[in-house]
């Protein structure tokens, strides 16, 4: 039982990070129907900038929390700048173009950002200085660290803040209006360009925080971390319902759980040696052996399989509304 609980804790924590990144994807898609492939790289840049700051400040003796906060404080503006430039230079001119163009552009931007980061921070894995004293608590045999608790708390807080922004402020109303119908929103006096830029900026800021969380939780950052994280977070956004903000949150957590529980248990389920009839037919099962069809090595596949299943069978995701022409 403690194993199961542990997997749940691991899954939910990893899932929270996915969720924050997924928010960036979902907001941008909701408003301009663009899959911003480069969002993962924004998260990576956030992590790298934070690394540089934290690495420089670590020996200075400041309290760990302050160092991390300063790191975040530096990462957020950099990411905002990156996100805004992306929108202004690469996506805005293609606002009316057929869907293929911004998609290819996004891939191009993603490649450029990745390799710029490579030039600045080198190829190596960067190890975050271990300044945060992490305490481990045991709940019924399952370990949860203070860093994990912090991540969960920050996630919830960010989600609440974003919900507040989207549903209670003028900007949020403008965003929702533009997402529904940009032309009419423009007619109503909303500066559509500014709203879209704001969406990118908020997404980028969230991405920066996600990057810092990732870096401090796993203790490392590398120029390639953006692409894998991005794909998984995008799957999470689609799972929850692309364009739907609570959906992104839910999708992230669910995906994290699926990955953790999948990696933990699928080997056990597909071990053919447990199934009497088959066990007798397979040589390897003798003497307590194992014949595992799908083990934890397929962990990465889960995100993709989830993505494909959702898109094929329920394209609107868990919480989304059915949108025509996308089905």
């Amino acid at each position, binding site marked *: 039982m403690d194993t199961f609980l542990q997997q749940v804790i691991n899954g939910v924590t990893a899932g929270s990070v996915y969720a924050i990144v997924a928010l960036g994807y979902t907001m941008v898609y909701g408003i301009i129907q663009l899959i911003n492939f480069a969002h993962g790289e924004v998260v990576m840049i956030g992590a790298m900038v934070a690394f540089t700051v934290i690495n420089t400040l670590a020996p200075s003796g400041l309290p760990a929390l302050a160092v991390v906060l300063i790191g975040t404080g530096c990462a957020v503006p950099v990411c905002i700048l990156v996100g805004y430039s992306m929108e202004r230079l690469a996506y805005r001119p293609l606002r009316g173009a057929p869907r293929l163009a911004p998609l290819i552009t996004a891939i191009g931007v993603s490649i450029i950002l990745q390799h710029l980061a490579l030039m600045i921070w080198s190829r190596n894995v960067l190890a975050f200085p271990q300044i945060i004293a992490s305490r481990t608590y045991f709940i019924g045999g399952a370990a949860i660290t203070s860093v994990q608790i912090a991540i969960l708390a920050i996630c919830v807080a960010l989600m609440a803040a974003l919900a507040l922004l989207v549903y209670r402020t003028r900007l949020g109303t403008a965003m929702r209006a533009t997402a529904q119908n940009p032309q009419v929103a423009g007619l109503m006096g909303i500066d559509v360009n500014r709203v879209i830029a704001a969406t990118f900026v908020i997404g980028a800021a969230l991405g920066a925080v996600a990057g810092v969380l990732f870096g401090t939780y796993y*203790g490392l950052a590398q120029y*390639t971390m953006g692409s894998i994280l991005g794909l998984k977070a995008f799957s999470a956004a689609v799972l929850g319902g692309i364009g739907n903000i609570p959906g992104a949150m839910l999708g992230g957590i669910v995906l994290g759980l699926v990955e953790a529980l999948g990696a933990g248990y699928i080997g056990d389920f597909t071990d053919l040696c447990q199934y009497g009839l088959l066990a007798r037919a397979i040589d390897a099962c003798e003497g307590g052996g194992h014949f595992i069809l799908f083990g934890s090595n397929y962990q990465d596949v889960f995100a993709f399989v989830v993505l494909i299943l959702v898109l094929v069978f329920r394209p609107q995701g868990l919480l989304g509304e059915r949108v025509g022409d996308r089905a």
Partner: protein
Amino acid sequence: MNKKVGITLVAAIFTFAGCGEQQKPAAKADAKSAAEAPKAPAAPAQEVKIGHVGPLTGQIAHLGKDNENGARLAIDEANEAKVQLGGQPVKFTLVAEDDQADPKVGTTVAQKLVDAKVVGVVGHLNSGTSIPASPIYNQAGIPVISGSATNPKLTEQGFKNQFRVVGRDDQQGPAIASYLATERKPKLVAVIDDATAYGEGIANEVEKTLKAQNIKVLPREKGTDKTTDWKAVLTKIRGQKPDAVFYGGMDATGGPLIKQGRELGIKAVFAFGDGACTEEMNKLGGPAAEGLLCSQAGIPPQAASKKFLDAYKKKFNVDPIIYSPFTYDAANMLIAAMKQADSSDPKKYLAELQKLTYNGATGPIAFDDKGDRKDAEITIFTMKSKLEPIAVVKGGKAVSYDEFLRSAGGAAPAAAPAEKK
């Protein structure tokens, strides 16, 4: 009209590409010889080209450069010694190529070296590029010695010109496994690998050895070479309560593995292969890395001959990382065989290379009939705030490190280990 433009364009590209390279090799060769021999002898020396291949760009570019430096040191020393072959003075030139650790580029580069008429090759660094390149060298009859490719398949292909001076994964795996078995006596071991050729290979060897010693091994868990979150796999393992965990993979993933393992409360001893036997483990794993075991093929750089260490430091201003003593020895062996045969013709000196016994920076080297190094040593390390060698396994038998140094005699004293990077 468009079609014609298109056709002309295509033709132009081909001609441009063709013209492009005509100048390049000439320019490159000039640049190389200019950089190579500031002290070219006044008498026209016969130029003897030796190739070196390694990843000079990419994830392990630093290791590739380290290897190249080792070979270059040997070449420069030979040039200073003013070697003569067949009565003529010779000048050795190192043709260094970058294979980007990509098999496709590796084969192209091998072809390039064959075209450039090198008489011998030191390299490649990765088994993944050495193996596809080997038939190309074999067809051309050029002897190749690798200083770092550890996949057993390389020398199992029956090529008489393929050698290596470093141990194989099927020697390294059993070495760390039997050390683990005899010293820590675990009853249950978990084996994880990163699903790369290297990681899976060495993990397979470890599992085989452990099973042969009647130790129970859990079903294999895998990650990828980019896994950052090991918690799912580790939680599953924790439930089975193993006494030891072996991981076949690199430090970039091994560090987080051991860190997260300790965070989850796993108390087992963690063992690694040479991919995760670096100081990076300290940085990535933090205090969790304390007490880990790992192995390296060959002897540690600090146990290499003092002469080599000093010369390397003097020339390149950095310390050798891992395999440069091996590439140094490999290049020197090529040269020694040429001297023995008094010729730089591969057809003549290959036979000498096969029987050669050479005392190198990594100890005495001789090749067996497959081209592997006879009695290759494997060193076992532990992490005590930095990596410290604790044992050397040779021919299946493990001796403690201090005893090894005493018996080897003449190797660098353990009291002053060089800082690795």
